[in-house]
């Protein structure tokens, strides 16, 4: 499935049918540094993501 990433804005292909947390870890992202938006709503990181969900893994860390 395709997930949207930010900073910079881009899309990557990952294996679906798994909790968001597993996908974050596979991508090397700390779960504490991301929120998961699925079909326009916020969801907990144990949510199973699958086709055809529209998913964004959004980083929350800012450097200012």
């Amino acid at each position: 499935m395709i997930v949207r990433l930010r900073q910079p804005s881009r899309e990557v292909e990952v294996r679906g049918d798994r909790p968001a947390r597993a996908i974050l870890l596979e991508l090397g992202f700390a779960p504490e540094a991301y929120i998961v938006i699925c079909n326009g709503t916020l969801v907990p990181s144990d949510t199973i993501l699958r086709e055809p969900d529209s998913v964004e893994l959004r980083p929350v860390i800012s450097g200012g």
Partner: protein
Amino acid sequence: MSKCRSCGEPAVIDLPRHNANFCSEHFIQLCRRQLSKAISDFDMLKPEDRVLVAVSGGKDSLALWDMLVEEGYQADGLYIGLGIGEYSDESGAITRKFAADRQLKLIEIDIRDEHGFDIPTAAGVTGRSPCSACGLSKRHIFDEVAKREGYDVLATGHNLDDEAAVLFGNTLRWDVEYLRRQAPVLSAGSGFGKKVKPLVRLTEREMAAWCVVRGIDYVVEECPMALGNKHLAYKDALNALDATSPGTKASFYLGFLDRMRPVLEQSAAIDAPSSCPTCGAPAATADQACAFCRLVDSASGHEPIPVRMVLNKKARKMFDAQWGSQDGN
């Protein structure tokens, strides 16, 4: 699907430091409680205070403004146009829309119009890091506007992660003077107005979630000047610790407030600063202009330097991936 700890409805977020999940309603309630606790624990605001919120278009400052207005405070926004290429254009537009949609008062200062320079130019001309030139300029302008417009308090969106990262850095260097000054409230005095950080009990992730739940559009892309800075490295380190032992970051910082600050407060105070001969703001010595006036002096009127030119090689690569390299800005 996980359920809300308070009501059993489907949750929207997991908060490992509370070892629980929450629905949107109870998540909002939890954030409000943390905000109120910070405000009352540190005597940040009185109900009748006129509050000026420093807004950047990012999640923290917009969430803070939203929360304070919701709590019934008289809170106006102050946005500073820093002249950081497309990032500034986008953050200005988002901030203006936020204020207009809610009919809130927004004061805007464009640093190039008012002081004749922008942040990339100031960094390029003086050799300071962009964030140091920027931080110094923002602090100066916040103080100046709050004073000029008669606000009682200036509120900034520093969250728990920001404060924990600063604390981590100060501790690694054992910078006692900075540790002493690291407080959620700076009371008015010697030329400075009162400054408060009402979000110190809320994490960065909670503030991003607040914005999504409340339907607040904010600038997600990072300021190009922040790419690869040390502050981010400290945050990564703390989040890595939190991943194996949730709550470590929060207890590091909140424990500092509870147990270390009282110790530091008892030790000797810093000398009251003198004032700048040019602008009257507090300065280290009486015979020399303050750091901001010296910055204006060297950078004002200089031909604009594009953002890309003041980034190091690594940051420039990240910048090009984010904003594209074609327009040279």
